């Protein structure tokens, strides 16, 4: 097909040759050669025109190959032809069709017009994207990098916001804390106990402050638990599920600073959750959270208490006033002499020892603003810190009466007995294994003794011990039998 396309202009020019021959006298020999050439040329044309179908159906091979022969043939003639031919090549197929229309239809006798199918046989090779030299094909990568940049931007902005909030909180509370505590700010690493006077940054969103050196308490740990503003994923998750910044205050008390009771008040949801999670609330405050309406606190708050006397003692006028005026900011308040943290799930069943307890007051406050806090909001938490200080002093003064004390002691011994019962079998097993271990250790020692005399003596001593134990057991059994009788 390409042959025909290319040779047509050649044909034209050949026809026009007589008029141009004058110019190419140097290049051309006399008529004979031209005549020969013309014959060959026409012969070629004839061949091509007889089998146009074949040419049309054939896939056009790389353009360079078929064009080479016509170019060679026409080389002797004007070079203008080549250029024309190449021009024809560079144009699209549409051009070819235009060419056809320009020529006499008689030229194409025997040539079947199969133009429409011509297009189907052409296969466009895709240039691989990375060779295309355009940035647009890398749009996924650009998207990724943009995402990373957005993450980094958010990290910097979130970190700064959290830092500003923490600083604002500290600035507004500094005076109160410094007037109440001898040591404000300690990270535990310095040799001497001097106030660092600044927050201890644990994370990009958690700040700690340890205060100590006051009557009625051992120390107070304040944790500013901000939202993870520095993590973009978290920011997006918070758009689905709003959350707020929290301030957690944990006051640890000495033994003489608090009487034995367990008490909690807070939002209903928080109370329900704490009752399930916290070891001491679970054991000592079995009843469902009660409403505090009879004390005058809003319905949104619920009370968990070991006994009524405790609630009466804690809920004095000042406390009620605090709770009512700041109910929206209070998540939970938890006073306990048996505080041991949340329930620990152990793999081997129950733990063998009762968890260590510490007399603690726990306060969890919600920062107003539901995530969109500004540094000014931190001032509104100051009255709550006053409440904390007031509670510390109050708890020191709060003493149960005789009945209350008896009840409390009974509760505690009940809990302990329950625990011992539950772990009885396990403790027995543990004791058994310990005894076996001891025996084995002794046997090994005997075996390892090199001196045969000493070996014998040790063996005898062990045997005597065993005998004694057996006798003791038999005596005990006899005694029990007698008693039973």
């Amino acid at each position, binding site marked *: 097909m390409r042959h025909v396309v290319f040779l047509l202009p050649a044909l034209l020019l050949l026809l026009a040759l007589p008029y141009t021959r004058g110019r190419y006298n140097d290049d051309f020999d006399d008529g004979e050669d031209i005549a020969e050439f013309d014959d060959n040329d026409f012969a070629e044309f004839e061949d091509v025109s007889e089998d146009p179908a074949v040419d049309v159906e054939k896939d056009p091979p790389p353009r360079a190959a078929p064009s080479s022969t016509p170019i060679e043939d026409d080389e002797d003639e004007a070079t203008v032809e080549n250029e024309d031919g190449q021009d024809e090549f560079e144009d699209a197929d549409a051009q070819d069709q235009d060419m056809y229309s320009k020529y006499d239809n008689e030229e194409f006798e025997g040539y079947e017009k199969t133009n429409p199918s011509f297009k189907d046989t052409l296969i466009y090779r895709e240039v691989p994207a*990375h060779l295309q030299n355009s940035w647009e094909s890398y749009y*996924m990568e650009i998207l990724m990098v943009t995402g990373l940049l957005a993450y980094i931007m958010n990290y910097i902005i979130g970190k700064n916001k959290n830092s500003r909030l923490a600083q604002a909180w500290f600035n507004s509370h500094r005076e109160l804390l410094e007037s109440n505590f001898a040591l404000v700010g300690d990270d535990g690493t310095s040799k001497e106990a001097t106030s660092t006077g600044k927050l201890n940054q644990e994370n990009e969103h958690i700040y700690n402050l340890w205060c100590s050196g006051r009557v009625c308490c051992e120390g107070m740990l304040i944790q500013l638990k901000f939202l993870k503003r520095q993590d973009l994923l978290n920011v997006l998750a918070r758009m689905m599920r709003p959350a707020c910044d929290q301030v957690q205050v944990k006051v640890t008390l000495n033994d003489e600073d608090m009487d034995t009771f367990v008490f909690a008040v807070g939002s209903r949801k928080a109370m329900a959750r704490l009752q399930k999670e916290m070891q001491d609330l679970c054991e000592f405050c079995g009843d469902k959270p009660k409403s505090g309406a009879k004390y005058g606190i809003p319905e949104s708050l619920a009370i968990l208490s070991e006994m009524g006397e405790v609630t009466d003692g804690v809920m004095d006028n000042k406390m009620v006033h605090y709770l009512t005026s700041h109910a929206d900011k209070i998540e939970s308040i938890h006073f306990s002499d048996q505080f041991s943290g949340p329930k620990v799930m152990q793999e081997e069943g129950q733990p063998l020892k009762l968890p260590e307890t510490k007399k603690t007051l726990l306060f969890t406050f919600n920062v107003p603003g539901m995530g969109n806090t500004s540094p000014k909001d931190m001032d509104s938490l100051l009255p709550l810190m006053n409440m904390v200080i007031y509670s510390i*002093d109050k708890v020191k003064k709060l003493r149960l009466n005789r009945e209350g004390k008896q009840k409390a002691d009974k509760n505690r011994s009940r809990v302990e007995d329950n625990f011992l019962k539950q772990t009885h079998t396990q403790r027995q097993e543990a004791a058994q294994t310990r005894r076996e271990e001891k025996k084995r250790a002794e046997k090994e020692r005997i075996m390892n003794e090199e001196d045969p005399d000493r070996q014998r003596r040790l063996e005898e001593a062990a045997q005597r011990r065993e005998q004694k134990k057996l006798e003791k057991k038999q005596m005990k059994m006899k005694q029990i039998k007698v008693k039973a009788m």
Partner: protein
Amino acid sequence: MTVNNMADPRRPNKIFRYKPPNTETNPTLEDPTPDYMNLLGMVFSMCGLMLKLKWCAWIAVYCSFISFANSRSSEDTKQMMSSFMLSISAVVMSYLQNPQPMSPPW
């Protein structure tokens, strides 16, 4: 609000030092996110390197960034840097081996 009109409540002789809470006895207090993200990042970067998957390598970069953002200040920076470098190298290697742009999954 005055705490005690009579006396200063501060007692310098009753100072206790700060003891960081023992997280071994109470694992619920710890946030596992940075550790998980670190592990995920390493797994994805290995996948990206071995299987020559570009998207794996990019996710690994994201994971290491998230792990860094959530990490505690007491944590070793070497660990963070190593996972970060690993994910960057996964991305670079994937592109060196196959400079074609990533094709979206749709």
